[in-house]
């Protein structure tokens, strides 16, 4: 049963230089307690998708276009008033961000930053909220929590700050947690610890997670289902086992070739190896794209790809892909 349902979400930035179609017709469902991965290179519209769900996109330039639907527990979020939306943020849907160094307020104590979320959304008083903040620090594995409550973010390491962000996000038992590249800015060992923590808490609390990452390794470790995004669109979607067993889109193939293998990883001792990156670059989104957006970088591209955009098609076992050459891609890959 789906608690969050995104249909034809399109978010465009209107600037002096024109219209950037950062997200251009994305749909997916999130089931209760499920972990859904959204994967794609930098600039593919993953963060804008997440921020659009939360309605935290910059109001001066960004517009969620009419026709977009974000349904959460039966309510259409794009139609809610700002005030109603604030009731949902931090309580029912919460979010953690990529940069633990800048995501916490430098002049407020850790305790305040956790507790304010609790007393904003529950009736309890400030003393109880502080108690709750301490419990949350214990839960996310920060030792000496009583003392940490009165510390400031600059007194914590990057990994600990991300733990604090998780503590804030989970402090009101949200139904959905959106994690936007939560480990990208961290060292490899800390990355693993934070991912383990998230999985453990998800088991304990039953929160559904949208795990946004550019790293298929993270997807393999944490998710049940995956959406692959390219140039503001969903190009493939499948249960995680199915995706790794039978990738249908050339872009997904490219991403898989770029996954660092563990044995090599150990040799290079912490340095992130950049293996077989997909040649070329993510296209700019400020002009309409003709045909398949991946065509300039695709080994399988034909004349047709350059003029006609491929529709998303169902290939069985919950596997969707938007590519004209799926059959050929599969034979070559096999």
């Amino acid at each position, binding site marked *: 049963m789906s608690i969050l349902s995104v249909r034809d979400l399109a978010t465009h930035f209107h600037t002096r230089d024109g219209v950037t179609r950062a997200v251009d017709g994305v749909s997916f469902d999130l089931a209760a307690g499920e972990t859904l991965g959204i994967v794609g290179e930098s600039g593919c519209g993953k963060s804008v998708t997440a921020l659009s769900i939360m309605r935290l996109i910059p109001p001066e330039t960004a517009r969620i276009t009419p026709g977009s639907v974000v349904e959460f527990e039966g309510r259409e979020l794009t139609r809610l008033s700002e005030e109603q939306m604030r009731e949902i943020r931090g309580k029912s849907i919460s979010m953690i961000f990529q940069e633990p160094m*800048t995501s916490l307020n430098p002049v407020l104590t850790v305790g305040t930053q956790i507790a304010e979320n609790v007393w904003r959304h529950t009736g309890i008083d400030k003393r109880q909220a502080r108690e709750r903040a301490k419990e949350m620090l214990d839960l996310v594995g920060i030792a000496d929590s009583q003392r940490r409550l009165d510390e400031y973010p600059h007194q914590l390491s990057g990994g600990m700050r991300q733990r604090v962000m998780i503590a804030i996000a989970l402090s009101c038992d949200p139904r959905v947690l959106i994690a936007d590249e939560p480990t990208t800015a961290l060292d490899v060992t800390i990355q693993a610890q934070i991912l383990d923590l998230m999985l453990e808490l998800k088991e304990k609390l039953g929160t559904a997670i949208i795990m946004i990452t550019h790293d298929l390794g993270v997807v393999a470790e944490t998710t049940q289902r995956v959406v692959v995004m390219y140039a503001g669109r969903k190009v493939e979607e499948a249960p995680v086992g199915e995706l790794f067993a039978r990738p249908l889109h050339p872009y997904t193939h490219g991403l898989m070739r770029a996954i660092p293998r563990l044995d090599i990883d150990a040799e290079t001792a912490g340095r992130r190896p950049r293996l077989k990156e997909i040649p070329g670059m993510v296209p700019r989104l400020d002009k309409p794209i003709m045909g398949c957006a991946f065509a300039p970088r695709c080994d399988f591209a034909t004349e047709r790809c350059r003029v006609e955009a491929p529709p998303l098609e169902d290939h069985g076992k919950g596997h969707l892909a938007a590519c004209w050459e799926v059959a050929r891609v599969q034979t070559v890959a096999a």
Partner: protein
Amino acid sequence: MTAYIIRRLFATLPVMAVVTVFVFFLLRLAPGDPAAIIAGDDATAADLEAVRAKLGLNLPIHEQFGLWIWRLAQGDLGVSIFSDLPVTRLIAQRVEPTLALTLSTLFVAVSLAIPVGVIAAWQARKLADRAVMVFAVLGFAIPGFLAAYILIWIFAVKLQLLPVQGYRPIGQGFWPFVEGLILPSIALGVTYMALIARITRASMLEVLSQDYIRTANSKGLATKRVLLLHALKNAAVPIVTVIGIGIALLISGVVITETVFNIPGLGRLTVDAVLKHDYPIVQGLIMVFAAAKVLVNLMIDISYAFLDPRIRY
């Protein structure tokens, strides 16, 4: 924190020492013979000698300096040449109007400028913001004395709502005291209001684009809390700095305002003492003004540590 405050306090000593030495030599190294200037054109040699003796100018310079320091340490700033009254008492009599005017101006400027600057940043590039910016440019361009005459003309002469000039000590009742301060405070405050509003807007705009503001919004916090706690506290250091500079300028600016509004404060005392070459009073005033500025500086430094936990010297 206490250790930090004590360290800052000690750091003010060298500055005050330099001021002291400067003030001492100001009189001795000034061009011309101070005694001759004071005694007047048709003074006899005996008159000059009397003035020198009174100022202590007949002693060797190191003894003069020793005496100056020794008296200063006891809070003695010397005696006025013309009225024979102790300088400390003359200054003390005039402190209240100046202090009242400075504080009320500051209150008017800060209490209006900060909300206005915050709203402008929040409504960036919308109507409210543009209105504030026009006001800020105008307010900064209009000289204080011009604003003063315009305000006097409208509120005192035409509408007759407020007194034209003069100062009522707080001892004569709170409302008359406040009435007398309204126009001078606004006249003197417009410039600072404009300045503080601008810096508040700029500093807030920068802070509002930071990641932690997005985090605050992702918790669904009320706009008021995001603006006034999460953003303003981060934006505060530049604002407080400008307020500090404002106070320093205000202290110097009282000379003009007190003249325009006929307020018997330190500014007027300064003008009178300079015109009459009453050097001991001028010296005493420089010491007091310098001490006031050092004190303001100290308070600003201490407030930084309260506002930003990362600041530790």
